[in-house]
């Protein structure tokens, strides 16, 4: 037995080495059973045609590894071409694979195939020499100038453009030879390494495993710009994507699909309406809506409302509001429940086809990965049909019966549940149903019904891709393509509905939109502009890896937007009264302040200057200190915008010896009396509340038990909220909710919905700089 196995192994290894694999590579390949089987079958077929040369072997290996799985039915056809030398170079093989992908759904027209991949065309050495000479002569000047630093890569391409089937190695050799003839041997100057400029450095981000994303050359600013650079499949080219399953109906279904959509890109954002959206959803919204927008397509907002127990009206409304807040307009708003009848009828079709059955295993029996197989799997079709009817009619209690699909998920989980019983009314369908479809069953079918071209989802769902395709094909309906991207996780926060609920019920935060959270409503309340969130998502890219992001990265995007949009205002948080004894005017006067300094187009507003004003307590010190640049009895300070500097005349104290107010004198600022600093101030101020926030948690990952053994509730930062009553200049009077300001020297602030016409409440959005050293 053992000997037999060894000889078997050796035979296999020999076959692999025929395909040009090194000994090491053979060993590695043998570990991959599927690939080994594929390659040995290729080797067997090719060997029947005669001895394999090394170059044929290499081509065969490339063929085996590069031809997408769904086209393997064409493999024997291609192996023949390679084995007998009709396809004898990499370029021809690439063209052949492309041809198969483009024409796989009909009979192969061998004449067209031969033409497309240059079968029988051999480019002679003379032709190569002439082609290279022509190209080099065109670039001669530049080559002579840059000598050996000249990038010869494009030359190859140019030669190949005229001589498509020229052997690339020969072309390369010819180019080198002709360059040598032209330039002579390398001189000393040719050996100096060119200094790398900064822009040459490629950011080494995570390598994208799944998505064919072309890394943008420069950082894209907006989502749409970024997504224009992403190359998913074109609508209707579903079958060319990796892992797509081609059936006898694929060709017809894709044709019908294109007729219905007119070739338009269709995406969807499918949240479950059982909670409110958070920063992670913002990524999904941006990718789905953004990809559609970037390709003149449409995006559906589909409430995936298959679990009536957890759904509430307010979530439906909230989700829609947030999508609109981010600036996107759904093409249509749909619900998975809109399709319940169709889904139900399809379930019957599956039962009739013997692809689904009613199972009575208890939920706890089926849980986990080593669940025992269902004893009900092979029950007769008519029995399942009857029992499924019984489920629908309420004859079974919850948990007594489920409908299961006869398929196995990638992760090895067998026969996922398609329908379960819930005696719960549904938000949309009322008391019509007591059987509800599962995510696994519903999701792909709804995508199919809506003719989604790109079903974009997070990486966790990669394991569901095969069942997604299986189900669409089992029903002979249009099958969209699923693409996965990495999930976004934010540090220093929790986003799960249950955990936020806990934070609220224990009084750590006020509500779902408490600005310390990372729900979208919280970010809105905190004053994050939607475009900043969108731009932030654009910076994340579409890599397959799960990304964990520090809030600073998001805040930086927010700052970028607010810097050029938020109007300036002066607000004093810890007031110190100042009385100008030599006030030069009769009464209050107006002072003009630019809305955004340096951008006159954004206009200006006025504030009042008067004899009595308030400055920050911290902007005055009784004793002079080294490096302290603001007001002291010995040191003047400038008042921003009004062109005055003040001088302490007298420090008036209370009976207990604390500073009560200052008597100062003022004088216009001139070049000669230039103060070391200018401070903000207010006169005739409005009283307002200012809420300032810090991170809600002390650790990056409050949910990680290795870092926070006591659970996330023990990691709360006790100082995450500071409320103070401040004095604001008159320009903020009447500001609408969510109006954003830059309070001079303090940071960005946004008007909170708690405000009343007489009393504005501000939330601090972000500070002015990432490092918040105050002095």
């Amino acid at each position, binding site marked *: 037995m053992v000997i037999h196995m060894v000889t078997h192994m050796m035979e296999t290894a020999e076959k692999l080495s025929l395909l040009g694999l090194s000994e090491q590579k053979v060993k590695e390949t043998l570990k991959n059973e599927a690939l080994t089987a594929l390659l040995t079958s290729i080797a067997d077929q090719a060997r029947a045609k005669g001895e394999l040369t090394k170059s044929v072997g290499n081509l065969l290996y490339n063929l085996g590894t590069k031809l997408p799985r769904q086209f393997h039915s064409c493999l024997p056809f291609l192996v023949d071409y390679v084995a007998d030398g009709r396809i004898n170079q990499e370029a021809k093989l690439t063209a052949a694979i492309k041809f198969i992908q483009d024409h796989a759904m009909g009979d192969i027209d061998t004449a067209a195939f031969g033409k497309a991949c240059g079968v029988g065309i051999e480019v002679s050495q003379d032709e190569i020499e002439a082609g290279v000479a022509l190209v080099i002569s065109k670039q001669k000047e530049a080559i002579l100038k840059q000598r050996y630093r000249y990038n010869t890569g494009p030359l190859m391409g140019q030669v190949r453009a005229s001589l498509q089937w020229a052997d690339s190695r020969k072309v390369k050799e010819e180019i080198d030879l002709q360059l040598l003839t032209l330039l002579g041997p390398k001189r000393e100057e040719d050996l100096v390494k060119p200094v790398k400029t900064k822009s040459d450095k490629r950011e080494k981000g995570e390598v994208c495993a799944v998505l064919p994303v072309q890394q943008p050359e420069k950082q894209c600013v907006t989502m749409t710009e970024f997504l224009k650079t992403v190359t998913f499949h074109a609508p209707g080219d579903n079958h060319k994507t990796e892992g797509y399953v081609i059936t006898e109906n694929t060709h017809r279904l894709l044709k019908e699909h294109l007729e219905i959509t007119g070739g338009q890109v269709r995406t969807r954002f499918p949240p479950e309406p059982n909670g409110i959206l958070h920063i992670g959803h913002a990524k999904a919204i941006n990718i789905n809506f953004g990809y559609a927008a970037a390709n003149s397509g449409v995006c559906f907002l589909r409430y995936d409302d298959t679990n009536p127990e957890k759904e509430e009206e307010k979530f439906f409304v909230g989700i829609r509001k947030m999508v609109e807040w981010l600036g996107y307009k759904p093409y249509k708003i749909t619900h998975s429940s809109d399709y319940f009848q169709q889904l139900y*009828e399809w379930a*019957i079709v599956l039962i009739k086809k013997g692809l689904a059955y009613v199972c009575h295993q208890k939920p706890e029996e089926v849980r986990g990965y080593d669940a025992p197989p269902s004893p009900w799997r092979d029950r007769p079709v008519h029995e399942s049909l*009857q029992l499924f*009817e019984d489920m*629908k*009619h*309420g*004859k079974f*209690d*919850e948990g007594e019966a489920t409908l299961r699909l006869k398929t196995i998920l990638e992760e090895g989980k067998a026969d996922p549940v398609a329908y379960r019983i819930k*005696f*719960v*009314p549904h938000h949309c369908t009322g*008391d019509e149903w*007591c059987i509800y479809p599962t995510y696994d069953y519903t999701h792909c079918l709804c995508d199919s019904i809506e003719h989604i071209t790109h079903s974009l989802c997070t990486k966790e769902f990669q394991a569901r891709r095969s069942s997604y395709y299986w189900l669409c094909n089992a029903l002979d309906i249009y099958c969209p393509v699923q693409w996965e991207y990495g999930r976004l996780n934010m540090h220093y926060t929790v986003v799960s509905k249950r955990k936020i609920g806990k934070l609220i019920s224990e009084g750590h935060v006020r509500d779902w939109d408490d600005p310390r959270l990372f729900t979208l409503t919280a970010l809105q309340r905190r004053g994050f502009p939607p475009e900043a969130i969108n731009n932030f998502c654009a910076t994340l890219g579409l890599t397959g890896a799960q990304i964990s992001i520090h809030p600073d990265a998001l805040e930086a995007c927010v700052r970028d937007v607010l810097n050029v949009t938020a109007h300036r205002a002066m607000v004093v948080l810890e*007031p110190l*009264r100042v009385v100008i004894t030599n006030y030069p005017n009769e009464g209050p006067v107006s002072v003009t302040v630019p809305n955004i300094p340096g951008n006159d187009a954004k206009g200006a507003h006025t504030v009042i200057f008067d004899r009595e004003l308030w400055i920050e307590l911290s902007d005055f010190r009784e004793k002079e200190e080294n490096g302290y640049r603001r007001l002291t009895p010995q040191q003047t300070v400038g008042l921003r915008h009004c062109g005055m500097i003040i001088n302490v005349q007298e420090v008036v104290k209370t009976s207990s010896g604390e500073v009560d107010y200052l008597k100062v004198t003022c004088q216009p600022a001139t070049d000669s009396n230039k103060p070391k600093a200018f401070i903000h101030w207010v006169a005739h101020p409005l009283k307002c509340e200012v809420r300032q926030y810090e991170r809600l948690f002390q650790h990056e990952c409050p949910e990680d038990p290795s870092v926070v053994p006591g659970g996330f509730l023990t990691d709360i930062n006790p100082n995450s909220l500071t409320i103070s*009553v401040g004095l604001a200049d008159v320009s903020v009077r009447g500001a609408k909710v969510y109006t954003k300001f830059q309070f001079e020297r303090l940071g960005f602030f946004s008007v909170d919905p708690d405000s009343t016409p007489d009393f504005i409440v501000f939330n601090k959005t972000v500070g002015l700089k990432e490092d918040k050293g105050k002095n």
Partner: protein
Amino acid sequence: MTLSREMIETQLHDYTLRCEHAEKETDKLAACVQALEDGQMDLFTDDITDKEFINLINENKKLKYRISILKKSIASMGGERSTKPQDDIFSDHMCNILGQLEDIFRKAVLVAYPDVSDPVIQIQLSKHADYQCNAAMALAKILKKNPREVGEMIVKNVAPGPMIEKMDMSGPGFINIVLSQEFIRQQITNVIMNGVTPPPVTPKRVVIDFSSPNIAKEMHVGHLRSTIIGESLSRLLEFLGHDLLRLNHLGDWGTQFGMLIAHLQDNFPDFATKSPPIADLQAFYRESKKRFDEDGDFKKRAYEAVVKLQAHDPVHIKGWEEICTISKTEFQKVYERLGVRIIDRGESFYQSRMEALVKELDDAGFLEEDDGRKVMFADGAGIPLTIVKSDGGFTYDTSDMACIKNRIEEEKGDWLIYVTDAGQAQHFKSFLACAVRAGIYNPSVTRVDHVTFGVVLGEDKKKFKTRSGDTVRLVQLLDEGLQRSEEKLKEKERHKELTPEEFVKARDAVAYGCIKYADLCHDRSRDYIFSFDRMLDFRGNTAAYLLYALTRIRSIARTAGVNREEIVAEAKKKPIELDHEKEWKLARTILKLPDVLVRITDDLYLHPLCEYLYEVSTVFTEFYDNCYCIEKDETGKIVKINHCRLMLCEATAQVMEKCFAILGIETVDKM
């Protein structure tokens, strides 16, 4: 100063908030108390932390929800065993519109008036609309309400569906129903594409007993009716999807075999080794009967032969088999001519079962001694059954009891049908009552129908006899039919237009078709007058006319040069368009077939199917007279073909062919 004033304000704000909070709490508690008193738990579950209590509340909610689902399910099933999902009704089956409407209205009534049990839903054809529902009248009486109001309530609760276009009220409370045109077009299109398909029916195991002549006797015109009716019912039930067992209950175990075997021994002593060449079994029978009646010695030997036969003496069995084979071969010839399929299962089959049954009945104490006989009484059985004769032999009663037991218990029949003449009604009543008493037959589980028919009369309205006064032999009758059919066709000069093969085919189809149709188109329970003249008339409700009408319909498409595949392809492209009033009328008539068929299964009277067939042909004539299918110019050249009308012709032909097939009548392409 400023600061401290602010502090006070802040504190005041704080106290106000706390106060407001306390007030809210008080209100909430008051509401809770109120809710508790009212028993409305849902209102304050948010504030309850007792897990068990919350779980109970949730469970209660779920149970309530389940009740509502179950109630709806019961209503949707209308209390019947019809659990076919919707898609089946409209794809695999033709829609039995009347039945479906009844169902829809029953559900509507149950939703509108959930307390009414088993409402009577009457739906009939209407002059003002397509159908009319009269349920409101009876219901109003029960509910003591205004019928119009009840009618409106029902209309309001009719579930939306593809079938009904609109409903309105007329008179005191009639609901007029107009079918959706879309629905009619789709249904007609389905007929063209899929042919005539049965309406949805729950399949049953049916054991049907018909024909059943006696061995060694000739089949006569009385057997004809049982054979024709039985065959036609079998075809109908098979079409509807039932599982049929067709049994020929041959009389092959009677005392007549004693004299036959004795006579055989005398005339063909070597019968055990060489099949006796009996050409005329009837003559052989008459001879032996004569000897039996006149020769005492022969009679004694005949009795001995019976005893030996029943004791399974091999020689006697051999003789019995020979006689049976000759007889069955004769019967088979007749069945072939009439296109009848049936399995022979004579009384002999039940011999061992009768013995076992007698013991069983005796052991259970059902049998009573009566003058040496063993009899069985039962409620409803006017005359007691004689289970065992005084000589220990069995009777028809015994075999029929064993037979029903076999058909229910061994053959697993859900539905037993016996087709015999009306004279046996009393006998059936008695043995069925006894079968119930013996626990063999439970009327609520098994359906048993005794399909009876009247006698065949001659044109003199007396029992059908030959001129010489003998009973009419079936073979003779069929031969005469062929001859008369041939004459009729020749009179119409058909032999000049048809090839010899076509002519023979047409002759046979007309002959046998007419005999069957004449029988089936009358109410079977009545006597009917047998008249070749009438049944071969090419006018009126006869097979001759209808077969001819069908060939004419078929010839329309043929003339247009359009074959069936092209018509089907046309229908697949898009549903048929109907425009002309006569087109609509024909379409509606075509769609009545499923209802006609379902109705027949209620009482097993077949004449409504004949009436329907005739109606289709007359409505078709109306259509054909008013609507051109093909337009020709003066030279006879076709200038326009109306494909939708050809589709309608196709559907009509399909329906007529299906009717003929059920009636057991062969159709021909030309005649």
